[in-house]
């Protein structure tokens, strides 16, 4: 075991898989010589060569389209989209081609592409560097959608994604690349070194895609969340001194409905939290699942804390971002509801 931040853990997952499997290649903007704007592929081109770590033109549709073709020809491409906000030019290739190729050819053709992309706010990135578009992808049959919340899961889930014959959109909450974030921008930054999930094995291991994790065990409320807000939920419940189940969804598609519904049946109260805008957000799918599976156990309406339904505003980031204060208010609403 060694200490890694999320960037190092993601880089290590690449390294482990490129070493084990010569068909793994990396393609994206600035990923090669420079090692990525967030450094997630740093050193890989020097180690594995320019034919396996390829700097791409600025054309996300081209990156994903070319990666699909490479995958059809036996490679296992990891395509980096520099920011999730830039993924839209590749949307048709993801939805119409990557997600459906296996289905439409009845399994004769498939392309095991992993699309990695940093997402989320809290970094003063404004509307073009802060979005959380995961629910746009969970709506598409044929792809898996994953978002880790810590270095250990990031590496294990990324290895699972690379090994998966199904395409995976792998969201990386960039606010927590360097350390967990409790949702209060006034607090000093912390590193992963003091967090148990900052301990990461150097070699190969996997975290299965499709398993949620109960990160805190309690009985007053269930908070279902993922990404950066896992840490916000933990700091909010600690500040409130309440006993909560906090579930890190980790994989939005496939979704581990058992872990979620077992917890909500136990606590009878549930708050869903995500950074993405509320309307038609992934929380709506979670809430529908919970009302169906746990209706007779619910003691209060399922609550949601989410980004407001506006574009991500640069100057008002801390009014927009569902941070610690909003999380506490959301928990209170659910706890106090009769």
């Amino acid at each position, binding site marked *: 075991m060694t200490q890694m931040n999320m960037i190092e853990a993601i880089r290590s997952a690449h390294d482990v898989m490129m070493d084990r499997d010569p068909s793994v290649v990396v393609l994206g903007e600035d990923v090669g010589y420079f090692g990525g704007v967030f450094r997630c592929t740093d050193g890989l081109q020097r180690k594995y060569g320019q034919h396996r770590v390829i700097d791409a033109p600025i054309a996300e*549709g081209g990156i994903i389209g070319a990666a699909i*073709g490479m995958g059809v020809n036996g490679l296992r491409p990891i395509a980096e989209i520099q920011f999730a906000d830039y993924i839209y030019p590749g949307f048709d290739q993801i939805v119409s081609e990557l997600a459906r190729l296996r289905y439409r050819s009845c399994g004769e*053709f498939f392309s095991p592409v992993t699309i990695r992309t940093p997402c989320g706010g809290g970094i003063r990135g404004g509307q073009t560097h802060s979005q959380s578009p995961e629910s746009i992808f969970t709506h598409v*049959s044929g792809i898996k959608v994953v978002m880790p919340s810590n270095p250990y899961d990031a590496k294990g889930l990324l290895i699972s994604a690379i090994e998966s014959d199904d395409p995976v959109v792998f969201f990386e909450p960039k606010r927590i690349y360097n350390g967990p974030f409790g949702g209060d921008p006034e607090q000093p930054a912390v590193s992963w070194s003091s967090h148990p999930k900052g301990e990461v094995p150097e070699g190969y291991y996997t975290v299965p895609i*499709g398993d949620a994790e109960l990160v805190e065990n309690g009985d007053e409320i269930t908070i279902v969340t993922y990404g950066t807000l896992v840490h916000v939920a933990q700091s909010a419940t600690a500040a409130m001194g309440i006993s909560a189940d906090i579930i890190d969804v980790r994989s939005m598609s496939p979704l581990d409905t058992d872990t979620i519904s077992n917890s909500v049946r136990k606590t009878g109260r549930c708050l869903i939290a995500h950074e993405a805008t509320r309307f038609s957000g992934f929380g709506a799918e979670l809430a529908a699942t919970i009302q169906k599976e746990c209706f007779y156990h619910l003691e209060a309406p399922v609550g949601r804390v989410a980004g407001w339904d506006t574009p991500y505003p640069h100057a008002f980031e801390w009014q927009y971002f569902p941070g610690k204060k909003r999380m506490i208010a959301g928990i209170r609403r659910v706890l106090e509801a009769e």
Partner: protein
Amino acid sequence: MSNKSRLHIPQASARPGEKPDFSYLHLAPAGALDKPPIDSKTIDIEYLSSGLVRVLDDDHEAKGPWHPNLDHDRLQQALRWMVLNRAFDERMWQVQRQGRISFYMQATGEEAVSIAQAMALRAGDMCFPSYRNQGLFMYRGVKLVDMMCQCLSNTRDMCKGRQLPIMYHSKNAKIFSISGNLATQFPHAVGWAMASAIKGEDHIAASWVGDGSTAEADFHHALTFAAVYQAPVILNVVNNQWAISTFQGTAGGEQRPFAARGLGLGIPGIRVDGNDVLAVYATTLWAADRARRGGGPTLIEHVTYRGGAHSTSDDPTKYRPKDDWASFPLGDPIERLKQHLIVEGHWSEAKHEELVAQCKDQVTVAWKEAQKYGTMTEGPFLDPASMFDDVYADPPRRLESQRRRMLEVENDGNGGSQS
């Protein structure tokens, strides 16, 4: 020039009721263009993108440096495949009109592109087709009955009822799955070719789009990636003059030929008579040799004409002159190859009639067989439970529970249980 800006709306040269007018097409006589060495620099062979490579002249003689000198057996084979392609299309059109299949698209008038290119490529080369490349499937050994069963969505359908008719695929034949979203296959071909080069193989990729879909971003992505990495790929634009009802000028074909689209990236372009089997074969072989030997991509524009409707869903008499095709200066590829073989003394009208009859019979036999596997109205039918297969390699549990629910509703006339 004037002292005001202006908006130019491209106008088709002729619309219904008007006299067909192809004066906008820049033609060149057969044999007029030099054939450069395959290692030529793009800048030295730009003439290939503005001229027109032709081998067959107006008297059906083959001439000039691009003459591939194929022996008459191979030319007769090419003719046979093209006639079969047309006979297949005619039958499938007819059965769509009879309500036996839901939809169809013919390649009428463009058969030379798929057949001559399939002949010039090697079996290990990968094809990323558009929806009018059925000739590739036929030439590469996909059975007519299998293509018909796909169109019927029946129990032998390679797509198990999931795809609109004509969206074939064949891993065996190395032909990618056809998409209804246009030009998406172009970057796939480039990525496939890049992988071939990464793996050190000498297989190349080829892909096809129409003149209309060159306007899609995917076309430009593909050209950029192909140029940047010098991918071993042949990128084909089948300029059949029409994108449903809009003529090629609406896709930007008025100012410069589509073959010139790659020049700014350093990709050589060849504008070829797409109705001339010999010229299509020769230019494809040139591009394939160049790609196989590290010379990178080539963009080929095939100047041809869409002889029929876009699909069974549109009526071309509503947007172009009825006799447009008959006036097309590059004619009909089947007729031209037939006349060439006759001029060469290797064919006759009688033999041709016999070939047409044979191909029609072959299609009839296949159609009879295909219907045994079911039609849209008569069984046997596909199991609808199979619609949940192949969405994922590793399917989520929700698909299995939805399959059960669908079957409950199907098996219980009252609508099954809720949710």
